[in-house]
């Protein structure tokens, strides 16, 4: 009997499966980092992970909390200045897959991670752009990962932090991909046990549905065990308080 899993785990596994072995990935913190490392520890051992802090070809044993934890530098092929990550690697076209999350996405895959409300008088001030605008522009393909609700999948963004067109929007219910001519996101796949109505209800615009919906298979036991042990190692590592040895 298969192990029970959470929607978050399903979303992470679905994202990981889309990463082909050997691809060069520009990795963001949080779920993208979990998905990339899950892929590296399962079907894609030669995945090249680049974090914007300047670590290239890094192979962390625990997930970093920040984009620049020491673990990333220690396990990297090379550590380079940050401006070169954005110019020599990203802008020059050396990144295959960019991974983004956001607070809001619209039906063309434009993203908002800057403000809810007006920019000059925000209701909620969010962290802002970071690497997102240029990742969206320069990575050969872009995966957007976020939980689906009518508050996050919105008809109109409050602020456009980065401009579409993602290769896929991976949510906790399924996957949407852009229509070849209009670029509008269309629901093309669902996880086991999720209905089209549920996906429609958790979307702030009238969601287009593909003529045939494919079903994404649940996480395998191996995927789940690798992901959980990665998270377990990470939780343990991040709970340790640090002591600074002062010279006496």
């Amino acid at each position, binding site marked *: 009997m298969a192990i029970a899993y959470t929607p978050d785990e399903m979303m992470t596994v679905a994202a990981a499966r889309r990463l082909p072995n050997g691809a060069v990935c520009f990795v963001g*913190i*949080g779920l993208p980092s979990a998905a990339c490392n899950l892929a590296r520890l399962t079907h894609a051992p030669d995945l090249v992970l680049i974090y*914007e*802090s*300047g*670590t290239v070809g890094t192979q962390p044993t625990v997930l*970093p*909390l*920040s*984009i*620049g*934890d*020491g673990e*990333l*530098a*220690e396990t990297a092929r090379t*550590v380079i*200045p*940050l*401006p070169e990550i*954005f*110019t020599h690697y*990203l*802008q020059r076209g050396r990144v295959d897959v960019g991974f983004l999350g956001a607070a809001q996405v619209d039906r063309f895959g*434009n993203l908002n991670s*800057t403000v809810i409300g007006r*920019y000059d008088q*925000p*209701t*909620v*001030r*969010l*962290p*802002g*752009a*970071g*690497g*997102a*605008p*240029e990742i969206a*522009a*320069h990575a050969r393909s872009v995966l957007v990962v976020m939980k689906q609700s009518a508050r996050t999948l919105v008809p109109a963004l409050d*602020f*456009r*932090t*980065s*401009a*579409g067109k993602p290769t896929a929007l991976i949510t906790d219910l399924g996957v949407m991909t852009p229509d070849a001519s209009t670029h509008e996101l269309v629901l093309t796949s669902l996880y086991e046990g999720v209905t089209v109505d549920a996906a429609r209800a958790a979307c702030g615009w009238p969601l287009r549905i593909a003529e045939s919906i494919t079903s994404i298979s649940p996480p395998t036991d191996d995927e789940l065990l690798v992901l959980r042990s990665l998270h377990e190692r990470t939780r343990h*590592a*991040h*709970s*340790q*308080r*640090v*002591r*600074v*040895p*002062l*010279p006496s």
Partner: protein
Amino acid sequence: MTPQFLSLRDTMSAYVHDGMTVALEGFTHLIPFAAGHELIRQRRRGLTLVRMTPDLIYDQMIGMGCAEKLVFSWGGNPGVGSLHRLRDAIEKDWPHPLTIDEHSHAGMAVRYTAGASGLPFGILKGYTGTSLVDANREHITSITCPFTGEAVTAVPALIPDVTILHAQQADVAGNVLMRGIVGASREAAMAARTLVFTVEQVVDDLDAPMNAFVIPAWQIAAIAEVPGGAYPSYAQGYYARDNAFYQAWDAIARSRDDFVSWMTQHVLGTLDHAEFLRSVGAAD
């Protein structure tokens, strides 16, 4: 010319004055927390603070009223959530209004690089189709390449009055070595009108590999030896990032009262960084 070796207190009071544009750089790694705390103790006011990622150090400086303006590209607590003091300043003008000059990481990197190169502006293929262009017209615009006709984005050079960096080691002659993740530190260093360092340790010889990131002594105005000076961020080879503290900060910074009482106890109420480290339980 060699830098002065000063105490942290004397370095900050000699080189950082009210109203200046100051960059405390270091991307997650080597963030000059001790220097930021000393500026809070000295009650600096009206600063324009420049950093790609404001991080906890600018959350603290903004909440304590040091800043008038923030130049930045990503203002969150990495992997945790909001910087609540930064949010409160932008959303509710507390403790007073904060002007922002907001960019992407790529744009900030280009701005520092232009400053470091003596150029009036830098270019990138960036910001295209984003609201940032409309929100920050003063600092983001499009120009045409005179050779290809291609549209590229221009951003003005960043030239901090003072850049403050933390590094692992200085030698006795005042050359400084940085190892590990350097972010845009090199560019922020070379863009500055005045450059000062805090370091973990002063050593006789850096023993640096040939292509190592060494800032030559004659570029540096002053160096303060401050062990643990990057805590709760980290110094590769000395101590790790205190991720548990970064997580705990979320609750401390959420309310104004809790924040002020924490800062009063641990920063204003301590004489120097060693005392700060002991007061938060990070050192014996």
